[in-house]
């Protein structure tokens, strides 16, 4: 009995751990827009709390954010930025620029760096600058970059991205690049997994896409769908 209770207590403790996006997120700019991508796993300790998470959150019509870190912190930060951008949109009376959205997120991260666990990537499209990607890691440094990766899984794909990212890709090429990269991270990072979600933002608007877990590209040491035993 005693050891059962101990088991239960350990399990309780695990559930009480912060719900965290041990994650792979990324965004890349291409000719005429940006593409964002993320896995869909949310964990509490070793337990997968959500296997179909959406880590690509809209900040306004033309800007999205990839969230990593604490799910609670990043969801609420996104809500704050949405609120500020709506205010801003009304005062400005025209399209919000990606840099403004990124800067608002930066204020939140920088001014509360001791309270928040949040690594973000802000990306979107505006008429003046076209597609832009902003990396916003822990601590609140804001850097405009051609592409950005983040979350625990990103450590496994620096080499892949450094090799395969090129300037002036087409939307299709960029999306393929992102899906490939995220799948490689998912293949090695236990905290990343599930499906791959992508968002492509161009002058024509936002297009979402979804790669179900069963269709995620398979890599070294894995068995592809063709080997799968059918569900009952």
């Amino acid at each position, binding site marked *: 009995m005693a050891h059962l209770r101990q088991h239960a207590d350990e399990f309780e403790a695990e559930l009480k751990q912060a719900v965290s996006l041990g994650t792979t997120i990324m965004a890349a700019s291409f000719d005429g827009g940006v593409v964002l991508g993320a896995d869909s796993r949310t964990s509490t300790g070793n337990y997968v709390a959500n296997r179909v998470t959406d880590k690509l959150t809209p900040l306004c019509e033309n800007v999205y954010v990839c969230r990593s870190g604490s799910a609670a912190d990043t969801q609420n930060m996104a809500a704050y930025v949405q609120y500020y951008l709506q205010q801003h949109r009304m005062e400005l009376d025209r399209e919000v*620029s990606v840099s403004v959205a990124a800067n608002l997120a930066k204020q939140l991260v920088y001014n509360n760096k001791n309270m928040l666990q949040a690594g973000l990537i802000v990306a979107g499209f505006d008429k003046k600058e076209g597609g832009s990607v902003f990396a916003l890691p822990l601590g609140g440094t804001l850097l405009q970059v051609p592409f950005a990766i983040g979350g625990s899984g990103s450590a496994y794909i620096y080499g892949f991205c450094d090799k395969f990212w090129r300037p002036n890709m087409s939307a299709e090429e960029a999306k393929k690049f992102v899906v490939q990269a995220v799948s490689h991270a998912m293949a090695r990072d236990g905290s990343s997994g599930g499906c791959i979600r992508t968002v492509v933002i161009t002058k024509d608007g936002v297009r979402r896409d979804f790669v179900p877990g069963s269709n995620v590209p398979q890599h070294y040491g894995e068995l592809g769908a063709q080997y799968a035993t059918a569900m009952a």
Partner: protein
Amino acid sequence: MSGIGTGYDLSVSTFSPDGRVFQTEYAQKAVDNSGTVVGLRCKDGVVLGCEKTIISKMLVEGSNRRTYAVDRHAGMAVGGVAADGRQIVNRASSEAQQYKSFYGDIIPGHVLAERTASYVHLFNLYWYLRPCGSAALIAVYDRDGPQLYLVEPSGTGHRFFGTAVGKGRTAAKNEIEKLKLEELTCRQGVLEIAKILHNVHDEEKPFEMELAWICDESNREFQRVPADMVTEANTKAKAAKDDSDMED
């Protein structure tokens, strides 16, 4: 209807029976009675010009400023009470600074104009304040191109192609309407403003022109017009005026 002696014109928080706020109108008088300020939006930028009566020959040239940069991409010229105008300038520049630190971007023209107008308007709301006795011409060059706004003591703000406030405003506005602003460059605008200021100026007193612009030539930064250009415009304007006087 005149408000004098009725008691309805003593406080900014009092309406007259026919729905006017006389204190606001009186503040506008302060602008109407002082030196002319002209603003032109040309095709490549905005030029602002002020007529400054020289109250003493011992004044240092260029002292008693009327044009102020509010940020690198925005500036204003104030007509009326100079001291009140400076408060408006201070507020406008702190608005510009706050906007930049919050949004990480320069303040757009219409936002600056709107926020400045709200500030000026606040002085029309409380019995313990008085309306500002100055009007501000705001020149901005942002991603939407060059823009000119006018904020008046009542707190109203409008966008203009060209406008004028102060003693010579009526004559000045007549002159402005004759200009083809969409074809005019700022360089030409400087001369036009000089001519207008010379025309409306009461010849009894000596005066000084203060000109500022924001245009491609100034790297889209709000600056005083270079001294040699002002001198040149001054001479040409004076000559033009003498010519037309001869004809009369």
